[in-house]
């Protein structure tokens, strides 16, 4: 990194974290602090660390990098901060800076990031995982990365009892121009791990429009989150070009959608890309957001109890909380769980890096799901779904986990 760019990055971190007056409002809401009560694990601790780095009080060490890596980027602190200090953005910047300064190889993320950069490789991985699932070997893959998929067929079969039939066909109120070109953005997680959910998203979308499916690139969030900013920007440029002709870009992955909606901010001041990125971001909608706008009615009403887990990148990343709930209320007996908005501990690759901590956070989620008595927990992000599938298994079949497109 050029020293000039390094200084700019450091100044950016300083501008963000110096807004923190260390009051402590983030302490009780940080899921990590909730399971590991160390000041350094809290948002306040990490922001102050950022400030100390920027002021030269502490050295940019591997230990410091480890501290800023220990963050879910879930934005619970941002939401509860009296001045909304952008801790998540500061952590992403600090990771990049400290990787550079400490010469950390970052090889693990480079490897995964390299895979995700290529739609072809993602496709191969998806087929490999599909094979594992068919043969039942998926359970041998650690960290629940090859989850059993609970399908819509299972879902309907479980609620075959006195199901209340919904209207036969969705009634669509088109507020979106009828000739609009609607594109589907397929996230890598959905593609590799949840092909059935993807199929359901597409089936729903096809009833509302003629959906265009370009072979898109990774949204770049895994790269951005681990200091690989250039890779992230390159992927963003490729996607911006690819989707130029789309009027709407629908994502059924909260993390992709959230990232894509925020692309504009990463190209601020870039004469070539700023306008294009902004126009791209404006076109992105979450599946539930889109379905709500067009007045979609779930295909079938079931007589089961459902609860919902808010993906961080949907609730806080995009402010979408009501739409999925409204859709689920039309689908079945919706029961709100306690702390639905608290991170499940998945957080991209966090659950791979810190399996024990992640399990503690998921344990709390499991309890909250069980307390509702619901037999299904629904969410809108493959990252969360990996975690919730683990929770479902741990519950011994008390509930199943589904992507929202499989329920509605």
């Amino acid at each position, binding site marked *: 990194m050029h020293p000039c760019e390094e200084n700019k990055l450091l100044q950016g971190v300083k501008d963000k974290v110096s807004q923190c*007056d260390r*009051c402590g409002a983030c302490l009780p809401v940080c899921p990590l602090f909730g399971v590991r009560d*160390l*000041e350094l694990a809290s948002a306040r601790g990490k922001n102050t*660390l950022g*400030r*100390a780095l920027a*002021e030269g009080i502490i050295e940019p060490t591997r*230990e410091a990098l480890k501290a800023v890596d220990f963050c879910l980027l879930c934005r619970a602190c941002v939401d509860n901060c009296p*001045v909304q200090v952008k801790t998540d953005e500061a952590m992403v910047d600090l990771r990049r800076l400290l990787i550079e300064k400490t010469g950390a190889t970052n090889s693990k993320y480079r490897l995964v990031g390299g895979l995700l950069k290529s739609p072809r490789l993602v496709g191969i991985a998806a087929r490999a995982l599909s094979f594992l699932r068919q043969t039942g070997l998926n359970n041998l893959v650690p960290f629940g990365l090859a989850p059993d998929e609970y399908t819509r067929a299972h879902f309907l079969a479980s609620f075959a009892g006195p199901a209340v039939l919904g209207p036969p066909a969705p009634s669509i109120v088109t507020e979106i121009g009828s000739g609009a070109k609607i594109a589907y953005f397929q996230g890598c997680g959905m593609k590799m791990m949840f092909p059935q959910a993807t199929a359901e998203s597409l089936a729903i979308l096809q009833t509302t429009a003629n959906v265009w499916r370009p072979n898109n690139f990774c949204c770049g969030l895994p790269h951005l989150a681990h200091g690989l900013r250039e890779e992230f920007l390159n992927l963003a440029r490729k996607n911006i070009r690819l989707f130029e002709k789309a009027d709407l870009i629908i994502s059924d992955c909260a993390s992709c959608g959230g990232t894509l909606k925020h692309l504009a901010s990463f190209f601020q001041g870039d004469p070539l890309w700023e306008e294009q990125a902004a126009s791209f971001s404006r076109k992105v909608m979450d599946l539930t957001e889109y379905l709500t706008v067009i007045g979609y009615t779930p295909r079938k009403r079931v007589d089961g109890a459902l609860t919902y887990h808010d993906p961080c990148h949907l609730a806080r990343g995009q402010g979408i909380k009501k739409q999925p709930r409204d859709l689920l209320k039309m689908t079945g007996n919706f029961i709100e769980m306690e702390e639905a908005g608290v991170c499940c501990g998945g957080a991209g690759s966090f659950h791979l890096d810190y399996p024990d901590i992640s399990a503690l956070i998921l344990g709390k989620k499991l309890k909250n799901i069980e307390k509702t008595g619901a037999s299904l927990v629904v969410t809108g992000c493959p990252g969360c779904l990996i975690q919730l599938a683990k929770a479902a298994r741990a519950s011994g079949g008390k509930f199943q986990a589904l992507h929202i497109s499989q329920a509605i």
Partner: protein
Amino acid sequence: MIDDKIREKIISIVGRENCLTSDLERFAYSYDSSFIPLTPANKPELVARPQTTEEVSRLLTVAYENQIPVTPRGAASGRSGGSIPLKGGISLALDRMSRIIELDPMNMTVMTEPGVRTIDLYNYAAARGLFYPPDPASWKFSTIGGNVAENAGGMRAVKYGVTGNYVMGLEVVLADGTILQTGGKAIKNVTGYDLKSLFVGSEGTLGIITRALLRLIPLPPRRGTLQIMFGSLDDGCATVHQLLCSGIVPSAAEIMDRLSLDAVARHRKMSLEANMAACLIIEIDGDDDSAIAAQTSKIKEQASKNRALAFRTAESLAEADELWAIRRGVSSALAAMAPNRISEDISVPRDVFPEVVRRIQAIAANHGLSISVYGHAGDGNLHPSILCDMNNPQEARRVHRAIDDLFAVAIELGGTLSGEHGIGITKQPYIVQAVSEAGVKTMQAIKQALDPRGILNPGKIWQ
């Protein structure tokens, strides 16, 4: 100095998992929520996190024998530097002593460890129809030990008093490790000196609070929250003053000036008309809806007489929370407005509240500084916050003169330096002016008697 031998001894007492020693981890325990600069970092040599009174006692025995400074810490949410380990040594983090030990419904008391969060204690009592009133703005994250040690106030002080009014007994570990039990469940107690009160507000300089026996009262069945906007601070202050004189005592009456409102409005949706210069948030409580309605209408009437511009009643719990979030967020919102924010905590008899607010505005004008005013209009405690850049030497000089003037005014009007934050590090230069030479000497004599080796939170309260 903590050498390897002492370190191992401490580790053997609290356990390795309750001891932090790395440079970075120690840095994280070098600050609190005050405006004390991060540099030079006041790093403790070691952070110890005991889980029982016995561990605290053994730890203090070691510290006493080896003359190692010990600075207690709860959530480090204090505003005056109380939990900063100014002289190094041990940062004694009590946040893992977080059990509520006993609720006694017959005597209406609760026994708790110091690391329990204030709001958790409130909710615990409220679920059983009981009320723990002290609610410092930080109550969602501050802990009881710190609340007692700083004698924390809060919004409800106007009707219900401060933390100290609810302390019936304490378990305290003294400097040499002796465990002292003081006070108890008996309401009347004049058996010798009132030692428990000595530790209330002692800022960790006399002993380590390891248990608190707190008084509860019946939870008022109904509550109402109102927001009233005024064209001037004077009108808002006058309204509160007249209400109190006419026998209407709200459970909270908080005022904020325009600068405070603008600071909050940067982070949350608020509709502010150009002529709104002050906002009053009032909480009332009573036995039933009609009691709330009666108070509301009287408050409304009084506010109208003082040219109120807008009046809003919270219709739901969520709306009440939203109104309170405005007030609870002021301090941090102001801090984000300028490179430095020097926040004071002066407290005056409530009858001169309107006067002190006028004088503060004059001080701001005299020194050409931006000083926001918000605070507890009902009880006379307010937080003038100077928004400034202390890196500008000329401005820093004006700030220091303004602070001198603020304290002089507070004392002249019969008030004092700190209502609820404590003296800590930030207000030390003014302590003699506030309590006199004799006052400081008396405190020092007590300190000398209880902590002859000066190991407990050294460097605090006086210079």
